[in-house]
C-alpha cells in the first residue's frame, strides 16, 4: 500500500493546527492586554508588563505602579478580563456544540430553555429577595443557575416523551414551548414588581460590571468541566453530522452523544449566564465565523471557539465600558451591534472566495 499520501496529509493537518494555535493564542493575548491596559485610569504598558513579570516566581521588578493603580490592575481589570474571557469562550464553545448536536445553524446555547430559565430565576431573586447584600453568598447567580438548569431538564423530560425519543426536532420544539412558558411567567412576575424593572432589564442585557475574583472562582470549575467534556466529544460531533441514523449505524448512540453534549454545554452556559446575565450572539456568531474560515470539523471549531469567543467578549466588554465612559453600555448590545456587521462581513467575503 502506498503510504505517501497519508504522511503528506497528516503533515499538512499538523501544520494547519500549529498555525491556528498560534493565531488563536496571539488574539487571546492581545485582547487580554488591551483589556487590562485600556480604561478610565491609564496604566502604562511598561508598568503592566513589569507587574505581570513580578508574578513569575523568581523575578522581581519594580513596576512603578502606585498601590491604587496596582489594585485597579489586579482587583478590577484583571478579574473582569478573565471573566469576560471565560464567559465568551464558554458561550462560543457551547453554541458550536449545540449547532453540531442539533445539526441546526440557528442553535445557540440558549436553545433549550437556559436563557428563559435563568431569566426567571434572576427575576425571582431580584423581585422577592430584596436585600441581597445581607446574604453570605449573592443569591442572584445561584437563582439564575438553578433556573437555567431547570429549564433544560424540563425541556429534556418533555422532549423525551415525544414520538421519536430524543429526536433533535422534538427537543428543539419542546425547548421553544418551555422557553415561551418560562418567559411568560418571568414577564408576569416582572409586571407585578415593576419597581425592579430596571434591574431585571439590565441583567437580561448582560453585564460584567460588578465582578471581582469571586465570580471567576465561581464559574471556573464549570468552564473546565464543561469545556473539557465538549472537547472529548469533538470527533463524535463530526460523526453526528451524518444524521442520527447513520451515526447509530457506525456504532455510536446519537441520543447518548446528544444528552452528554447538551448536559455539558448547559452546565457551562448556566454558570456563564449566572455571573454575566444573558449575553446574546456570541454563541452564534463566533462559531459560524470560525466555520466560514476554517471549515466544518468540530476538532478545530471547538478549541478555536474557546479562544476566539474569549477574545471576542474581552474586546466587546472593553468597548462596552469605554465608549460612554464612565457609563457602561450593556455588553449584550455591544456583541450584537459590532458582532452582527462583523459577521456579515465574514459571510460575504467567504462567499466571494469559496
Amino acid at each position, binding site marked *: *500500500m*502506498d*503510504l505517501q*499520501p*497519508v504522511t503528506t*496529509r*497528516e503533515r499538512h493537518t499538523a501544520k494547519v493546527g500549529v498555525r491556528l494555535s498560534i493565531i488563536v493564542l496571539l488574539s487571546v493575548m492581545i485582547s487580554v492586554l488591551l483589556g487590562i491596559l485600556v480604561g478610565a485610569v491609564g496604566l502604562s504598558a511598561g508598568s503592566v508588563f513589569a507587574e505581570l513579570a513580578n508574578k513569575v516566581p523568581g523575578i522581581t521588578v519594580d513596576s512603578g505602579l502606585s498601590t491604587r493603580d496596582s489594585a485597579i490592575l489586579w482587583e478590577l481589570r484583571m478579574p473582569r478580563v478573565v471573566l469576560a474571557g471565560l464567559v465568551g469562550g464558554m458561550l462560543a464553545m457551547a453554541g458550536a456544540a449545540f449547532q453540531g448536536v442539533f*445539526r441546526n445553524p440557528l442553535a445557540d446555547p440558549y436553545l433549550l430553555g437556559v436563557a428563559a430559565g435563568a431569566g426567571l430565576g434572576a427575576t425571582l431573586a431580584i423581585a422577592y429577595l430584596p436585600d441581597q447584600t445581607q446574604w453570605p453568598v449573592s443569591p442572584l447567580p445561584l437563582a439564575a443557575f438553578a433556573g437555567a438548569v431547570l429549564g433544560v431538564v424540563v425541556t429534556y423530560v418533555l422532549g423525551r416523551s415525544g414520538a421519536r425519543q430524543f429526536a433533535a426536532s422534538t427537543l428543539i420544539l419542546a425547548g421553544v414551548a418551555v422557553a415561551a412558558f418560562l418567559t411568560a411567567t418571568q414577564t408576569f412576575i416582572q409586571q407585578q414588581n415593576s419597581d425592579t424593572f430596571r434591574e431585571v432589564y439590565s441583567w437580561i442585557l448582560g453585564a460584567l460590571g460588578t465582578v471581582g475574583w469571586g465570580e471567576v472562582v465561581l464559574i471556573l470549575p464549570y468552564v473546565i468541566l464543561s469545556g473539557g467534556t465538549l472537547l*472529548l*466529544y469533538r*470527533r*463524535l460531533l*463530526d*460523526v453526528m*453530522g*451524518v*444524521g442520527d*441514523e*447513520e451515526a*447509530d*449505524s*457506525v*456504532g*455510536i*448512540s446519537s441520543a447518548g452523544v446528544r444528552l452528554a453534549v447538551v448536559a455539558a454545554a448547559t452546565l457551562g452556559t448556566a454558570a456563564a449566564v449566572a455571573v454575566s446575565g444573558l449575553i446574546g450572539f456570541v454563541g452564534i456568531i463566533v462559531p459560524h465565523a470560525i*466555520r466560514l474560515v476554517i*471549515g*466544518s*470539523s468540530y*476538532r478545530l471549531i471547538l478549541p478555536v471557539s474557546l479562544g476566539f469567543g474569549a477574545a471576542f467578549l474581552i474586546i466587546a466588554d472593553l468597548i462596552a465600558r469605554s465608549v460612554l465612559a464612565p457609563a457602561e453600555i450593556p455588553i449584550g448590545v455591544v456583541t450584537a451591534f459590532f458582532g452582527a456587521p462583523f459577521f456579515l462581513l465574514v459571510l460575504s467575503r467567504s462567499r466571494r472566495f469559496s
Partner: protein
Amino acid sequence: MSGLRLVDIVVAYNGAPVVDGISVQVPSTSWVSLIGPNGAGKTTLLRAIAGLVPFEGVIEIGQQPIAAMSRRRLSQVVAFLPQRPILPEGASVFNYVAIGRTPYIPYWGTETTEDRAVVEEVLHRLDLAEIADRQIASLSGGEAQRAVLARALAQQSDILLLDEPTAALDVGHQQQVLELIDELRLEQGLTIISALHDLTLAGQYADHLVLLDNGEVVSEGEPSAVLTEETIKRYYHASVRVVSQPDAGLSVIPIRPDRTVRGAGI
C-alpha cells in the same frame, strides 16, 4: 465468512406491523435484493438488520444473534447505506469517509495512522483520491454516491446493506455504481443485501430476489423465477413485459396500458 439468517422478523411502528414475519437466508458473499412496491417493508427490514429499529424474531450473522452484539460490534460486521444519506456541509471527502472508521476508534479517541491508511486505500480504490480534499456537498451525484459507498467500505464489514443505492443517479451512473459494488463483492468477499426499485437492475445484479408485499415475503428465488409478468402485475399493479435476451439477461419493460384511448383524447 458471514452469512445471514432472518427468522420470523416482525417490526411494528405504533402497533402496526410493517414487517410481518419475514424469514430469509442470505448465504455468505451472495447478493440478495429486496424488491416490492412502496411501503412493502424493504427499508424497515434493512434497518432491522442494521440494528436501527427494535424487532421481534432472530437475526443471526454467522451463527451469532445480533441482539447479543453491542452497537459497536454490529457496526464492525454490518454497514448500512440509507436511501438519502446526509452529506454534512463543509466536510471534506476524506473526513466524511473517515467517519466509517468510528467502530474501531475508542469512544473519545481519534483516528490512528492505521485508520487513515484504510481511508486512503478505500479512496484510492473508488477513484476518489484526487478529490479527497473537496467538500462532500460539492460533489456530483455519481461522485457523492461513491463517497458514501467509500464511507461504508471504511467500516470494513463483511455485510453491506444498500437502500436504493441508485435512486438519484442517471442510467450510466446507476450501472457504474452497481458494477463497482459487484466488483467489490467478488474482490473482498462481501455479502450484499440491497433494496432496489428498478426491477431490471435488481434482476441483473442480484443472485437472489426476495419480493415483499405488506411486510411479508410473497415470492423469492432466482431473478427469472420472481420477475414474471403475472407476479409484477399482481403486486405492483403494473403492466410490464419481461424480455430475456441471451447477452443482456432479463429486462422488465413497462408497457403503457391502453395507449390508444389516451392518445385519442388529445
